[in-house]
C-alpha cells in the first residue's frame, strides 16, 4: 500500500509535469501568434504573383513551359514536412503515415525500384525515414527555429533544377495545413509540374500591358518565384500547424495532470484521515487498557 509520503511525492511529480506542459503551451501560443503573422505577411506576395501569372497565361494560351507539361514519369520526389520537436500530438505521425501510404500504394512502383526520393524537412520525419528503407536524398533538420524565406527558395531551386534536368519528373509535398488553432489537415499537394491555376472570375481583366522585356521572359521569371512562394507558404503553414497542435496537446496534458492531481489528493486525504483515526484508536485503546489494570 502506498504510504502518505509516496502519494505526496507523486503529487509533487505530477505538479512539476503540469507546470512544464503549461509553460510549453504558453510558449507555443506566443510563437503561434508570430507564425500566424508571418503567414499573413507572406500571403499578399504569393497571391499577387499567382494573379499576375494567371492573367498572363490566360492571354498566352499556347505558352509552352516545362513546368507545366506532364511527361512520362520515371522518378518521383516527395517533400515530407514534419516538425523538429515532438510533443505535438499526432502531428508528425499523420504526415508519416500519409507518406507511407502513398509510398506503398500509389507510388509503390517507384518506391520498389528506388525511384522515389524523399526530401525530409524537419527532424522527426527525417529520423523516421532514414532509419527505414527509404531513399532519403535531402535532409533538412532544425530549420523551423529560424525559418527564413531563403531556405524555402533554396529547396525549391534544387527541386526545379532536378526537374529541369530530368532527374525528377514529379514532385509532391505532404504537409499539415493550418486550418485553425485547433485544427490541422494533412495535405498531399502536387507542385511540379504545375497544375492549372485556380480560375477566378476577375481573370477576364483585359488590359493591354506594355511588356518589358517581353511576355515570355516575364512568365519564365515569375514561375520560379511563384513556386518558391508556394513552398514558403507550405513551410509557414506547417510551422503554424505544428504550434497549434502542440498547444492543443499541451493543453490536454495540463488538463489530465489536473485530473490526476485531484484524484491523488483525494486518496492522500483519505489516507491521512485513516491514519489519524488509527492513531486515535490506538491512543484510546491504550488509555482503556491502562484504566482496566
Amino acid at each position: 500500500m502506498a504510504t502518505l509520503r509516496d502519494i505526496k511525492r507523486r503529487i509533487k511529480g505530477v505538479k512539476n509535469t503540469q507546470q512544464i506542459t503549461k509553460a510549453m503551451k504558453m510558449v507555443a501560443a506566443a510563437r503561434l501568434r508570430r507564425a500566424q503573422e508571418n503567414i499573413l505577411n507572406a500571403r499578399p506576395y504569393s497571391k499577387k504573383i499567382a494573379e499576375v501569372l494567371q492573367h498572363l497565361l490566360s492571354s498566352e494560351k499556347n505558352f509552352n513551359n516545362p513546368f507545366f507539361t506532364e511527361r512520362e514519369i520515371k522518378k518521383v520526389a516527395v517533400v515530407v514536412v514534419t516538425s523538429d520537436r515532438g510533443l505535438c500530438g499526432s502531428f508528425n505521425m499523420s504526415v508519416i503515415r500519409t507518406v507511407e501510404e502513398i509510398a506503398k500504394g500509389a507510388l509503390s512502383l517507384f518506391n520498389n525500384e528506388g525511384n522515389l526520393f524523399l526530401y525530409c524537412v524537419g527532424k522527426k520525419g527525417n529520423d523516421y525515414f532514414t532509419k527505414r528503407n527509404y531513399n532519403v536524398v535531402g535532409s533538412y533538420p532544425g530549420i523551423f527555429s529560424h525559418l527564413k524565406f531563403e531556405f524555402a527558395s533554396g529547396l525549391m531551386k534544387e527541386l526545379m533544377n532536378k526537374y529541369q534536368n530530368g532527374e525528377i519528373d514529379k514532385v509532391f509535398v505532404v504537409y499539415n495545413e493550418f486550418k485553425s488553432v485547433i485544427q490541422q489537415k494533412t495535405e498531399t499537394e502536387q507542385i511540379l509540374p504545375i497544375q492549372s491555376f485556380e480560375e477566378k472570375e476577375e481573370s477576364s481583366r483585359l488590359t493591354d500591358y506594355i511588356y518589358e522585356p517581353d511576355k515570355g521572359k516575364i512568365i519564365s521569371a515569375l514561375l520560379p518565384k511563384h513556386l518558391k512562394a508556394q513552398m514558403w507558404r507550405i513551410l509557414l503553414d506547417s510551422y503554424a500547424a505544428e504550434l497549434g497542435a502542440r498547444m492543443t496537446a499541451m493543453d490536454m496534458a495540463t488538463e489530465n495532470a489536473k485530473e490526476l492531481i485531484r484524484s491523488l489528493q483525494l486518496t492522500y486525504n483519505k489516507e491521512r484521515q485513516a491514519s489519524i483515526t488509527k492513531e486515535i484508536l490506538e491512543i484510546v485503546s491504550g488509555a482503556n487498557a491502562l484504566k482496566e489494570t
Partner: protein
Amino acid sequence: MKEIFVEIITPSKSVFKGKVISITVPGALGNFQVLFNHAPILSSLEIGRIKIEDEKGEKIEFATGGGTVEVIDNKVLVLADSAEAADEIDLERAKNSYKRAKERLASRGKGDIDMIRAELSLQRAMNRMKIVRD
C-alpha cells in the same frame, strides 16, 4: 494632387504602402519613372534602387534584388525578391557578402552556375553598399 498608390511587397512582408507622387524602378530595359496616368506596364526588375517621392515631397530609397513591377490604373505593385529601405540595410552583412562573392569569383573558372550566383550576389552587395553611401 495627382498621386499614385504604391505597394512594395517581398515574400516575407510588405515593405511600403502608400500614396506617392512618383516612383522610379530599375526595369529590365533600364530605369523608368512612373507618374500619374502612366500606361499599364508589366516589367521585370533588375538589381538596383527604387526611388520614391512621397506626398510631402520626401524621397525614400530602397535597395532591391530584382523582381517584377505592375502598373495599372495608377496603382503600382512591386513584387520584389528583396527590398530594404536605405536606413535598414545591414552594411556589415553587405560588406561580408561582397568579400565572399569576390573570393568565389577569384577562385574558380567561369561558366558554371555558381559563378552566375556569385556574380549576382556581388551585384546585390555592391548595390546595397552604394545606396547606404548615398
